[in-house]
């Protein structure tokens, strides 16, 4: 059986709860597509090699680097960006509220990635204690170094959601 190679691929996926279909070049990353084609600039480009985590998004609830994920690999999947965390009425997600109350950001560039990573970290069951959060959140670099506050926020959000 020969495979059908295409240079433009139609991809159906769900983005922040809404179904959409897009036609992309196979080499287009989820990160560049979100930022340049869709206009969702919350996901950031920090290194474009998967070494910083500022491009972290959720794919079917799993956290991934958008720069290491092709759009064509997301067919049939649900993608969540930071813009999709708050409720439809604008009510902040508990993790967003925890980041606010714990002062868990400074310049804010790594913050979208930290938030989504935190949401997943909690859902994975890795926000059990300080050491666990620090290890499992290490895929998101913060150069302003708000690490203690970020860790506190993740634990606070996990606690609020009944974990621990």
């Amino acid at each position: 059986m020969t495979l059908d190679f295409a240079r433009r691929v139609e991809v159906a996926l769900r983005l922040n709860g809404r179904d959409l279909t897009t036609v992309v070049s196979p080499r287009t990353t989820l990160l560049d597509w979100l930022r340049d084609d869709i206009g969702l600039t919350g996901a950031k480009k920090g290194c474009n090699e998967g070494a910083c985590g500022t491009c972290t998004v959720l794919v079917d609830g799993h956290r991934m680097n958008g720069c290491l994920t092709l759009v064509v690999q997301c067919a049939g999947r649900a993608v969540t960006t930071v813009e999709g965390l708050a409720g439809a009425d604008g009510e902040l997600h508990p993790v967003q509220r925890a980041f606010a109350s714990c002062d868990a950001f400074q310049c804010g560039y790594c913050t979208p990635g930290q938030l989504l990573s935190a949401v997943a970290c909690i859902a994975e069951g890795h926000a059990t204690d300080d050491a666990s959060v620090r290890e499992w959140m290490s895929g998101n670099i913060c150069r302003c170094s708000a690490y203690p506050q970020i860790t506190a926020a993740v634990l606070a959000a996990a606690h609020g959601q009944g974990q621990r």
Partner: protein
Amino acid sequence: MRDFAYARAGTAESAVGTLGDAGTSVIAGGTELLNWFRLGIAAADRVVDIGGLDELRGIDRDGDDLRIGALATLNEIGEHPLVTEMAGALASACLQAASAQVRNRATIGGNVLQRTRCPYFRAEEPLPWPCNKRDPGSGCTSLAGRHERQAIFGWTPDCVAVQPSDPAVALAALDARAEVLGPAGPRTIPMREFHLTQREAAVLGEPMRENRLGPDELITGYRLPASTDGQAYIKVRERASYEYALVSAAAAVRLAGARAAGAREQGAAGAREQGAAGAREQRIAAARVALGSVAQRPWRLAGAEAELPGTPLTREALTPVIERAMADAVPLPQNGFKVTMARNAAVRALLAAGGAS
């Protein structure tokens, strides 16, 4: 990266069928491949996506073996109860690799095929300096330049790089076999021979070859003996997470007095219940130990494994054994420390696997 044409494979066979073409690459997670494309380490006109092949997923017990599909992600493997119970070194190695985000995409099939982190190799095209991997025959700049993080075994003047995969070290230590599919059908490759040092590749007449996988073959999974041995994976790196190893070590230890059946409690957990002091009086019945990031393949310390039975599970007893087993290390001018560091990593891994503190 250059543009490419894309197709999704419906079966492993159909994917294999495309690999005969030099301009075709397979993509699973893509966490290495995309960077190769960006840097000019690899280029493809056509990319075949095998990410949807459910037949390549799955982590199961199959008789005496644990079977892990090639598309299992590092996070899936690291937290799977079968793996944590029966291949703890592999679970630990998987979870200490990269970041949570990368581990959600990186597959165990792709992970062992990752290439060296040597900064000279990882330079963006156009290649700014000699690198025999990137431009065969041009030379090795690392040897003349910076090479603290490079090999102490198996290197040649043409290349001093190491294989950085953590899971590969555990797979080699645990006697795993890679199951591989090619145009001629399936075969297996023992993981302790999967990768090639530069010296071994030169002997084969292909000095820049890095592993025994054929260019038209696909890893479909791994089999390893389900084990009740205590296991550990020690990864030594200057920052606490999200970094490649300076050196690493995987170990599996069966303590003397452990019974074959129902011996589960004699693994690490059981030994800890006896208390560290009690464990220190223990002797090793059998052990397997492999070093990582000291060569272009995991470095099983076969000599140590032969000598270890009967050895007390103490630092004082283990260290000279490991030292003897590493006597053939050939460090480079800047990385002599790796001999000491790797020795200590092996000792620490054995102690941890045996349940000593």
